[in-house]
């Protein structure tokens, strides 16, 4: 399965190795992993809500678009939902190509689209309470690169 939406934690290293092993002819593999980080101090937990049904569909469309635009042997998207704690992985993408440029650009593209076009919403809980993460204008702007 090249699109996985799950509440269970996963191991990015194990996923990266399995992904690389499955692509025979592509020597360039790029991965991105997003981790829950307590950047400003005080973050206790993250809750990710999503739109079951649409999420899988949206991620599939984003992946299809990347496979069309770049010379990729494969592309993987894993995204968690539910309750996460600092240090845990939130999501990862991986791309494989014969050309490093394609692998890099496609992974970058997947991340830009996934940020603003896949139905996930993050809520952060700290000692001060819980707040929905605000979308950033720069994430919307990033889509214009493609």
């Amino acid at each position, binding site marked *: 399965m090249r699109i996985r939406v799950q509440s269970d934690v996963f191991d990015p290293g194990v996923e990266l190795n399995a992904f690389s092993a499955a692509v025979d002819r592509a020597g360039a593999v790029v991965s991105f992993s997003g981790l829950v980080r307590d950047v400003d101090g005080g973050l206790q937990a993250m809750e990710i809500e999503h739109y079951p*049904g649409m999420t899988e569909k949206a991620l599939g469309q984003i992946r299809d678009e990347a496979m069309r635009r770049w010379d990729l042997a494969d592309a993987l998207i894993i995204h968690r939902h539910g309750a996460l704690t600092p240090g845990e992985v939130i999501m990862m993408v991986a791309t494989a190509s014969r050309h490093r440029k394609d692998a890099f650009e496609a992974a970058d593209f997947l991340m830009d689209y996934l*940020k603003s076009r896949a139905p996930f*919403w993050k809520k952060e809980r700290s000692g001060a309470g819980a707040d929905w993460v605000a979308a950033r204008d720069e994430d919307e702007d990033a889509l214009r690169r493609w």
Partner: protein
Amino acid sequence: MQVLYFAWVRERIGRPREEVQTDAATVAELVEELRGREERYAVALADISALRVALDQELAEFTDSLDGVREVALFPPMTGG
């Protein structure tokens, strides 16, 4: 049609989904109609620029027609990744 709410839209309205009978022709008209129901709808849906919409699980515009649509979802800008 089914109307779904996510994230703070869901929290403010106080439910994740509901069946709505409407003659609204567009999403914008539906939102206007929902705002008129109760204070919590008016608050949740006050600023359309802070909202996004999906029709039958595809991102759409507020000016889009509801003709044939079975599932409308209203939510804030997405923050995945």
